[in-house]
């Protein structure tokens, strides 16, 4: 019997009596991070890494029973020892290490290795079996350093300002938006956020992550001139009536999928910036190698190619059927309600 296996509700650990990132309500859920395909409401009890608390509580509702544990600290649950280790994906994201009689499994959730000042960097954890994502598991996916991407975003903002045009960038409210904020140059102009993003910003700030000052889009006087503003909005706001207030804005999207021209052009917007919370192909290889795992289980993304590649490189690998979705799933999780709830600054 493997230490972890997929049952109808999620990734099930028999020896520990818990699920990891279950898609149905279960008695005990260990959560890697707050994106909606990994943290769903309805379970009786949740356990997550300490910095993830605020996000989970916001996502699952104040009544959800959320327990936390600091990164690296071991907990015994049933017959297994469990610990959470930074995954570098979004604030509070963790790889979950499960040990049972000397056998170690690590479930990565989602992760990245590249620089991001809004969350704790990825930390490789040695294990026998590594459960990895593969959202961008093809060699066409290679990211540029974030400083280069931020440079082109700021340059675009500056050019729009010269034309007296508002800049609106679409990004997922949890993680991507805050990383984006960390790279914007506030000297160019005021930064505004949609309510859904403001709410998340507040959680980040309360957890101690420094972000530039942001204003709530709903709180401006009539006839406000958006000409020099940068607006960060969820993808679901695109094409909505909410957008009208910005006039003839220039629009952009920040996502790993923007690497592909077809994906950029499928959306009616001006610019696509390649910025992802997920590991690119070289990072996936590097992370997998660093675990020294003999066996690799591949969950969501380009599973087939990744499994075959790993097998050709001397690992045991196999695909694991889950309901995780990777970059893009986060879009649906925002009921992009633009309420003043986030505007407490």
């Amino acid at each position, binding site marked *: 019997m493997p230490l972890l296996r997929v049952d109808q509700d999620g990734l099930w650990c028999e020896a520990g009596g818990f699920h990891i990132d279950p898609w149905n309500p279960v008695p005990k859920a260990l959560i890697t991070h707050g994106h909606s395909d990994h943290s769903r409401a309805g379970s009786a009890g949740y356990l997550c890494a300490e910095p993830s608390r605020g996000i989970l509580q916001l996502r699952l509702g104040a009544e959800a029973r959320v327990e936390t544990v600091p990164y690296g600290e071991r907990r015994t649950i049933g017959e297994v020892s469990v610990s959470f280790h930074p995954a570098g994906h979004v604030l509070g994201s963790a790889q979950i290490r499960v040990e049972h009689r000397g056998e170690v499994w690590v479930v990565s959730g989602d992760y990245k290795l590249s620089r991001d000042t809004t969350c704790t960097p990825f930390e490789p954890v040695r294990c026998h079996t590594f459960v990895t994502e593969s959202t961008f598991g*093809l*060699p*066409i996916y*290679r990211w540029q350093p974030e400083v280069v991407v931020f440079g082109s975003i700021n340059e675009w903002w500056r050019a729009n300002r010269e034309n007296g045009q508002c800049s609106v960038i679409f990004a997922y409210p949890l993680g991507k938006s805050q990383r984006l904020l960390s790279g914007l140059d506030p000297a160019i102009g005021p930064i505004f956020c949609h309510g859904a993003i403001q709410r998340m910003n507040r959680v980040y700030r309360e957890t101690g992550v420094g972000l530039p000052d942001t204003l709530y889009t709903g709180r401006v006087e009539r006839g406000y001139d958006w000409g020099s503003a940068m607006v960060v909005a969820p993808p679901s706001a695109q094409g909505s009536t909410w957008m009208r207030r910005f006039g003839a804005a220039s629009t952009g999207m920040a996502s790993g999928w923007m*690497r*592909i*021209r*077809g*994906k950029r*052009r*499928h*959306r*009616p*917007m*001006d*610019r696509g910036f390649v910025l992802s919370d997920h590991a690119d192909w070289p990072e996936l290889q590097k992370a997998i190698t660093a675990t020294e795992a003999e066996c690799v289980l591949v969950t969501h993304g*380009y599973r*087939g*190619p990744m499994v*075959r*590649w790993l097998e*050709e490189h001397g690992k045991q690998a196999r695909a694991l059927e889950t309901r995780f979705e990777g970059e893009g799933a986060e879009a649906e999780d925002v009921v992009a309600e633009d309420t003043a709830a986030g505007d407490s600054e």
Partner: protein
Amino acid sequence: MKAFADLYAALDETTKTNAKVEALVGYFRAVPPEDAVWAIHFLIGRRIKRLIETRKLAEWAIAEAGIPDWIFGDCYNAVGDLGETIALLLPAPVASSEKPLRYWVEERLLPLRQWSDEQQHQSLVFAWREMDERQRFVWNKLITGEFRVGVSQNLVVRALAEVAGLSAEVIAHRLMGDWNPEAGFYSQLIAGDTGDTDVSRPYPFFLAYPLEGEPAQLGEPAEWIVEWKWDGIRSQLIRRQWQTFVWSRGEELVTERFPELQALGGLLPEGTVIDGEILPWKEGLPLPFAQMQRRIGRKVLGPKILADVPVVLLAYDLIEWGGADIREWPLERRRGQLAELVGSLASTGRILLSAPVAFGSWEELARLRTESRDRRVEGFMLKRVGSPYRVGRKRGDWWKWKIEPYAIDCVLLYAQAGHGRRASLMTDYTFGVWDNGELVPFAKAYSGLTNEEIARVDGWVRRNTVEKFGPVRRVKPELVFELAFEGIQKSPRHRSGIAVRFPRIARWREDKKAEEADTIETIRALSPN
């Protein structure tokens, strides 16, 4: 090449027409004529035939990237475009070429054809190493002959008109026909004087807008000349300097494909250009368009196919007469001259006048329109008395009033990812209809849904896949769509026994269940023959 790759990116980045024209104007002003002329060549969609087999190109890219063959296939499926896949896979660029477009095209691209495999291989790999990612992408598109960018010829014309300080009509006309991408041509293109001499050059076609709503809004019937709308190949027959040229609307010189018209051209007076429709024609009726496709598909036109599918030119308009451009003459005057000319050539059996339809009222015309299918036409063309022959698609003077397409409800059976911007979205669908209690595939369609609907169907397909055959997914037969199409043909090659012309999705019938879709008998009954 850097300037051209940047132009490509600028055009690709925006959906706004003015921004595109601005980028084009900036480019044409900045580069020398020998670069500008190649840029025009590619931007308006003139192609260089593929110079290298794509198989070889992929092989060399795989070697340069140091990856296994099989993963290249997976990457291609995710990207949906060969040139882009290669650009994304090559090792990270270390340089950005400063050499001009002319150099890359004339000294590195065109010579490929004469080089050995080894020379081609070396030259390409060195080219890739000299270029950044943007340049590689554009370069690969040029090599594969798949260069396409989101500008219409109209926008290029607008930009050039602005650069030259001339009207768009003059530029459009000068860009027609056969020209060589040389600096001299560019200089003439934007020159102030009009010593236009190319003997084969056709005129830009005047195209009609579809009429929305009823024709009564157009005013008095007496102000309109109405013709049947024929379904063939819109063309210009040109006779100048004792030579004959036939141009299709796709701006292809097709003279050799129609020996009948070449012979006809020899009988035309010097300096004549007729606008008309080439139709397969027998016994006073057009043949179904599928017959024409049979003929177009042939490399060699033997006596059998010429006898089976003879063509005629159905003359619409006369736009050059006695060597003079008469597009400004009023329609009825041009038509009068045309009728006289066609009359004098009637004995050849190769040319007919697209005769005006006699009608007293719009109601009567609407009744006549119902005969369209039996006459094998697509409806009416409505042309305003007194109208000039304009350039391009213009509103107001000419309208097409097409018959309603056939429409039936069918069930989604198979789905497959599209190409280009639709790669990794399920957008290519196969639909079926009921035949004795079984769903048989009968048509494929790619267009007609909004982006939002595509995204929803995509999600549904992924959740409801029953079986996969390579890239094709068989789905649960649940979703019903209304399919529109223009014509029905018997076809032994299709499992359903019928083939339809120009199928597209009219709407998603979310209110219907699969059991309510149409049957094959219903479709057979629609066919007039």
